[in-house]
């Protein structure tokens, strides 16, 4: 893989290849690599999803993803991180988000990875529209105001 072509914090219309991000974070001081892939699920609470539509405020979203990366390196020293989110129309089983974290020890790699997805769901300006069999709906956690922490 050409490291030049690799953006570790990216919002893209292209399909995501998890292996690229695993390779990107792997290095000689890493003992553990965790990878999270958020995939499009067909059934949610008995409703069938036909496909999803993701939209982002791209420059701000990429900035926020990079900020999460900085936070992780501070909270879990020795970590390396890549976080990428796909936008556009996604089919069932397509990967919407990939988070790759390497760390000297496994506990940090799990914790930092989970921290990343939780932060994404709180502060990164990306939106999902569910396309059901009988309609469509923009999904948002109405209980949480980003930036209100």
């Amino acid at each position: 893989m050409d490291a030049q072509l690799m953006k570790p914090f990216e919002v893209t219309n292209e399909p995501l290849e998890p292996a690229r991000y695993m390779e990107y974070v792997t290095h000689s001081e890493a003992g553990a690599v965790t990878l999270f892939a958020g995939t499009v699920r067909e059934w949610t609470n008995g409703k069938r999803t036909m496909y999803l539509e993701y939209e982002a405020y791209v420059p701000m979203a990429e900035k926020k993803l990079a900020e999460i990366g900085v936070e992780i390196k501070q909270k879990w020293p020795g970590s390396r991180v890549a976080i990428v989110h796909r936008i556009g129309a996604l089919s069932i089983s397509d990967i919407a988000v990939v988070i790759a974290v390497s760390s000297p020890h496994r506990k940090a790699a799990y914790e930092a990875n989970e921290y990343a997805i939780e932060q994404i769901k709180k502060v990164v300006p990306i939106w999902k529209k569910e396309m059901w069999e009988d309609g469509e709906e923009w999904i948002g956690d109405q209980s949480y105001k980003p930036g209100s922490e």
Partner: protein
Amino acid sequence: MIHLHYFAGLKEVAGKASEDIQWTDGTVEDIVKWAADTYRAFDFSAVQVAVNEEYVLETESVKPGDHVAFIPPVSGG
């Protein structure tokens, strides 16, 4: 003039992803009021505002040339 950015449901209500409006002086709160008056079909109660790609409080002032984005509750991941 300031640059406004709309996303998700608000983009659909506004029928556009962005627009420029005349602006000389005011706060985020003023702009939200303007937007709520202009796009009455959209509920702004849970919307956060980002100025120049950073979340800001409603009391923040907005200067000509700023990019103001209305951020409905996010749902990435």
